[in-house]
């Protein structure tokens, strides 16, 4: 059985260059016209440990990184020990024959064992053997019958014109590897059709950064934290050329407070972090809610609690996002399901933040944020809606009412620098003109009333915001026996599972998914839920944080749940298994 798709896995120790090898390979796949999806399993250490990356490439759209690798590259013995049994019939295990020994008892029947003296071969090109991984890569390229032109193009892309000798060495190394395959049986003859129409390949984090850039972000503050760091890296490298001030700051408290200061002056402002860092932003994001300052906060979740599993995925920060900041204030929470939505919803978040003058969170996770996926060309021509601004250039008649009571709860903003609109924004409760209630007026009957009105004004924004947030979406056959409920990155594996049980078991399963989580579309959700039969909630956390939100908002309790909290992303296969269990 030839699989018609690539599932390439390379493993070694941290420092072995596993992920850069896999990235090059992913790029080659995308350039060959395949749909690509990657997953990197790594640990919180710079050298050592066991890391591996899987690259799935297929002429058809893909929805997960797949399961069994049909080519496995073992750069060290541990990789062999851990993964050798997973390569199916027809696949190949490539390994460094000087370092690594397979256990024939564990390797599956029909999987080709391809031991190559990788380092020695590499040393024929450079004495330090630095191109070792490329030799293996070349072997894989040959095993999959990929076009060598893409190899060359990819290396050129990576090292550019600046290091032609490196490109040349790598191309030679890849050819060496390919030659070895030739000697040992040739390709695997999967017959994968390559269109050679290059596809865009990016991580969710990069898509977030691109979406922000398209939407006109002009200030980005971040403190490094896995798995959000690559947003900072991309922004720092590319933002300034587009006029974006990008700052690595002293901590996440500073990041959020700076973003508030920047947002206050009228630029589109943003932070990105993971749960631990977001925990430190909790006080300051409430400040933005109170001063009605727009900003976008990207929260890329990882395994918790506390430092937890820094390099593993989870969806465990929803309670944190819902509860961030003392008291009630209007927040919006968007949750992209895939790379495209990372771009789209981030761009949208900037509009919502400015229209409603309040922080909008974009919640993703390690699986989505760090994994490479092919996408259609993102459309940079996103609408830019800046919301209500006080008559620019004019002068306020009388005292400017920054927090004027309105039906929508939104009041026209003015920015420092605008003549005649001077006011002071305050985190204490205040009146329409910004003057404090808290300092000498609180408790006086008319100011009790004022407080009530101002608090209601702020909270009223949630109504408009809800309407502007993307509603829940029912995907799949309309009359399904089971409806999956999920959010965020579970989208891919969930869809894959649905297609799988449809194809294999003839089951009709659909899924109700939530690109926005707050303010919650309770009515719409209930309307949909009334029509469905049974439900299975799928979440990557222990307590079912989304299910709790759903129940708090609608009273609805999913019939079944599938909770995973071991740090690994869901696979289509395990969701399919759970579906079968449930409908049985």
């Amino acid at each position: 059985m030839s699989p018609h798709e690539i599932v390439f896995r390379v493993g070694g120790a941290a420092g072995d260059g596993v992920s850069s090898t896999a990235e090059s390979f992913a790029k080659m796949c995308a350039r060959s016209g395949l749909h690509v999806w990657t997953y990197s399993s790594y640990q919180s250490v710079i050298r050592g440990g066991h890391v591996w990356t899987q690259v799935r490439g297929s002429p058809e759209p893909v929805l997960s990184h797949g399961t069994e690798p049909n080519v496995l590259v073992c750069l060290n013995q541990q990789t062999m020990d851990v993964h050798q049994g997973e390569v199916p019939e027809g696949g190949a295990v490539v390994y460094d024959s000087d370092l690594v020994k397979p256990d024939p008892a564990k390797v599956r029947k029909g999987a080709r064992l391809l031991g190559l003296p990788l380092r020695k071969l590499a040393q024929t090109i450079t004495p330090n053997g630095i191109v070792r991984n490329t030799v293996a890569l070349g072997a894989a390229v040959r095993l999959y019958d990929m076009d060598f032109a893409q190899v060359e193009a990819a290396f050129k892309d990576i090292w550019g014109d600046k290091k032609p000798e490196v490109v040349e060495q790598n191309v030679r190394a890849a050819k060496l590897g390919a030659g070895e395959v030739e000697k040992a049986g040739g390709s695997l003859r999967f017959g994968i059709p390559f269109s050679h129409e290059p596809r865009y390949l990016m991580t969710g984090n990069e898509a977030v950064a691109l979406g922000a850039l398209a939407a006109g972000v002009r200030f980005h503050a971040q403190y490094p934290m896995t798995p959000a760091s690559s947003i900072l890296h991309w922004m720092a490298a590319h933002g300034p050329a587009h006029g974006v001030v990008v700052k690595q700051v002293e901590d996440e408290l500073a990041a959020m407070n700076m973003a508030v200061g920047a947002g206050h002056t009228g630029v589109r402002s943003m932070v990105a972090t993971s749960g631990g860092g977001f925990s430190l932003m909790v006080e300051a994001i409430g400040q933005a809610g109170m001063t009605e300052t727009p900003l976008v906060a990207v929260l890329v979740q990882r395994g918790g609690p506390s430092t937890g599993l820094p390099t593993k995925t989870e969806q465990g920060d929803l309670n944190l996002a819902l509860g961030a900041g003392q008291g009630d204030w209007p927040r919006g929470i968007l949750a992209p399901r895939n790379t495209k939505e990372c771009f789209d919803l981030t761009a949208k978040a900037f509009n919502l933040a400015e229209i409603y003058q309040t922080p909008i969170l974009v919640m993703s996770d390690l699986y989505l944020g760090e994994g490479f996926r092919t996408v259609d060309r993102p459309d940079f021509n996103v609408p830019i809606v800046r919301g209500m601004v006080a008559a620019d250039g004019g002068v306020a008649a009388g005292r400017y009412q920054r927090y004027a009571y309105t039906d929508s709860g939104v009041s026209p903003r003015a920015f420092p620098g605008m003549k005649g609109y001077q006011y002071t924004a305050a985190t204490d409760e205040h009146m329409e003109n910004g003057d404090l209630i808290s300092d000498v007026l609180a408790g006086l009957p008319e100011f009790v009333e004022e407080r009530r009105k101002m608090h209601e004004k702020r909270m009223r924004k949630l109504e408009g915001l809800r309407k502007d947030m993307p509603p829940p979406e029912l995907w799949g056959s309309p009359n399904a026996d089971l409806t999956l409920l999920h959010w965020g990155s579970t989208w891919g594996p969930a869809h894959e599972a649905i297609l799988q049980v449809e194809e294999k078991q003839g089951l009709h399963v659909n899924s109700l998914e939530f690109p926005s989580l707050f303010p919650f579309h309770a009515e719409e959700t209930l309307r949909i839920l009334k029509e469905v039969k049974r439900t299975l909630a799928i979440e990557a956390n222990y307590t079912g944080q989304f299910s709790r939100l759903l129940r708090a908002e609608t009273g609805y309790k999913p019939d079944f749940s599938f909770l995973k909290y071991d740090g690994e992303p869901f696979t289509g296969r395990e969701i399919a298994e759970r579906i079968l269990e449930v409908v049985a």
Partner: protein
Amino acid sequence: MKLAFELETYKSEIKPTWCPGCGDYAVLNALQHALTELQLEPWNVLIVSGIGCSSNLPHFLSTYGFHAIHGRAVAVAEGAELANPDLHVIVTGGDGDGYGIGLGHFIHAMRRNLDLTYIVMNNEIYGLTTGQASPTSEMGMKTKSTPIVGVIENPIDPIALALSAGATYVARAFSGDVKQMSELVARGIEHHGFSLIDALSPCVTYNKINTYDFFRKRVYDLNKEGHDPGDLKAAFLKALEWPVMQRDRIPLGLFYRNDKLPTYEDLEPAYKKGNPVTQRLGVEDADEILNEFL
């Protein structure tokens, strides 16, 4: 010559809510004088503060203001300044706000040498929360939170910290001398880089030790005594005089000034495209950006 902006122009409709006699009146006054002297347009000035008695100051001015959360004024101000470097961003607040909970931001901002002016109303006590020890409270001082043996921590020496951290304009003023204070503030605002004015501003309600009298007996003008603000090492030695070395003589004036160093804004590459606030949004060259992903 008629001034475009009189002192009155900078006053807001709101009467300060401080206790009668509070040192913060003098700071407000000095700041108004400095703004008048510099003739800054009120709409191009942004005063950022934290939380505390002193942090209520922005409300009493007719400029723009941001009355932030406790301890974060400097960070908020950095964001505003970076987003719109054409604003005159001035940070005001208390010793608890700036030297206590906000200490990290304070030092990191100074090492950035951002073009900010920071006026700390240092009353050596927590005023708004009704009289607990502050990071500048003297050893032995009994407060609501240190009622038994008094404070047992060394006070912060903000001048020495500022010098260590790379601030390029470091001064100390006293609410008993508005003239000197407004002069130091005005020069601080003018200064191209981070300027700190540690303003000794007595809390008449909760600090019965560091009163006007206490200071009047001890302060002296270090510049009149021949200190050269261009000499960093000398500045350090002056900084240590009080509160580290002794309690009897308190130097006021300009400890250090260095106009030769570039500011953060001078070095920031994004400004090549202009002030972020006035840039056109959107991206011109999507292709160039996207090609990297092909």
